[in-house]
């Protein structure tokens, strides 16, 4: 699955985009954030305040309990600040 990071989530992880093979027990957006935190200090730091991080699956906003099944692309980012 394609995973994208934006704004300070990208700065903290040091990664803009990557392809990930999901572990079997990672079923929701929230599960994925928990798993990402285990991937080293940058990811631990980026996803520490996971309640302020927003997500989109296939370019549509989703909540943390959204299932990942069938998703091609998931993005993590801070609350949006356009306009």
């Amino acid at each position, binding site marked *: 699955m394609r995973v994208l990071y*934006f*704004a*300070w989530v990208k700065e903290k992880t040091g990664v803009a985009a990557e392809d990930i093979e999901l572990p079997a027990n990672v079923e929701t957006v929230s599960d994925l954030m928990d798993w990402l935190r285990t991937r080293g200090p940058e990811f631990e730091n980026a996803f520490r305040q996971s309640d302020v991080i927003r997500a989109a699956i296939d370019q*549509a906003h989703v909540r943390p309990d959204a299932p990942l099944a069938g998703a091609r692309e998931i993005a993590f980012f*801070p609350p*949006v600040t*356009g*306009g």
Partner: protein
Amino acid sequence: MIRIQEADFDIGAELSALTAARADIGAVVTFTGQVRGQADGGPLTELRIEHYPGMTERELERVEQEAKERFGLQASLIVHRHGALKPGDNIVLVIAASRHRDAAFDAARFMMDSLKSRAPFWKCEKGPGGDRWVEAKADDDIARTRWHKKDAAE
């Protein structure tokens, strides 16, 4: 129509293209957002706007479509810039054209409120104190809920 671009836009030219001499339009409202030199977080020398290509287009199209259905617009436009901007530069332009003024005012405001809470843009302010990612305002989520309440009341 929606557009995402690094280049500046010309409000007069956009307005002319959309509404000039159209006898079915009675009211046109434009909103333009500009970069302020004194941001909420302090003085600002540059504003960098990042976005999520693909999703941004989708979200802006959805915002415009909702405004059209809700307010019965004759014409509309959303243009949002990204990249490195300076104080005084244009950021965003929203245009709503309708028969009567209430619909044009409501639609322009609705598009701005919706865009602020949904379109995947992020602002980073550069100033003497370094870089600072702008935090989302609770106000903007509250502004968005104005329209939920109207949904329920209608």
